[in-house]
């Protein structure tokens, strides 16, 4: 189904086990492969992601399970312990 890319901006991101992770602030596009490469997430949940030196994290689009009223991403154990790029 086709959607507007601006519909993604501001959506809340949750992991599949229900943890709030952050909000979509921007979308990283890969022009060569004509795909969404990653979601740039901000307003991060400090309990999940350590935010000291960076404002956001990039969540690879392959981790996205579904997009509707919120975005659900796959949960990978220890994924968010160190923060930074996944």
């Amino acid at each position, binding site marked *: 189904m*086709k*959607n507007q*890319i601006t519909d993604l901006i501001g959506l809340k991101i949750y992991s599949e086990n229900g943890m709030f992770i952050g909000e979509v602030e921007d979308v*990283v*596009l890969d*022009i060569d492969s004509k795909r969404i490469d990653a979601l740039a997430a901000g307003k991060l949940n400090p309990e999940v992601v350590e935010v000291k030196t960076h404002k956001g994290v990039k969540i690879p689009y*392959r981790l996205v399970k579904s997009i509707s009223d919120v975005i659900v991403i796959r949960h990978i154990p220890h994924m968010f312990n160190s923060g930074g790029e996944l």
Partner: protein
Amino acid sequence: MKSILARSLSRKQIVTNDGKGIGSLRNLMVDFDTGLITDLVLEPEESFDTTGYTLDGENMLIPFEAVRDIKDFIVVDRYLARM
């Protein structure tokens, strides 16, 4: 791999590979299931003849396949754009 932030594309000018201005970018259509970018949604310039192009109200759609490159402008192939 060339990656670009979607917000940086906002209002970017779209030109054809033969140097003709078409309009400015309004949005991108994507397939959320596959992550593929399918179309450019743009606002055509008043002087631009939109005959033969896909229109959606005031906006015009150009298949993303037609995009040659994106730097200061979005350059589209003038033949592929008309589908």
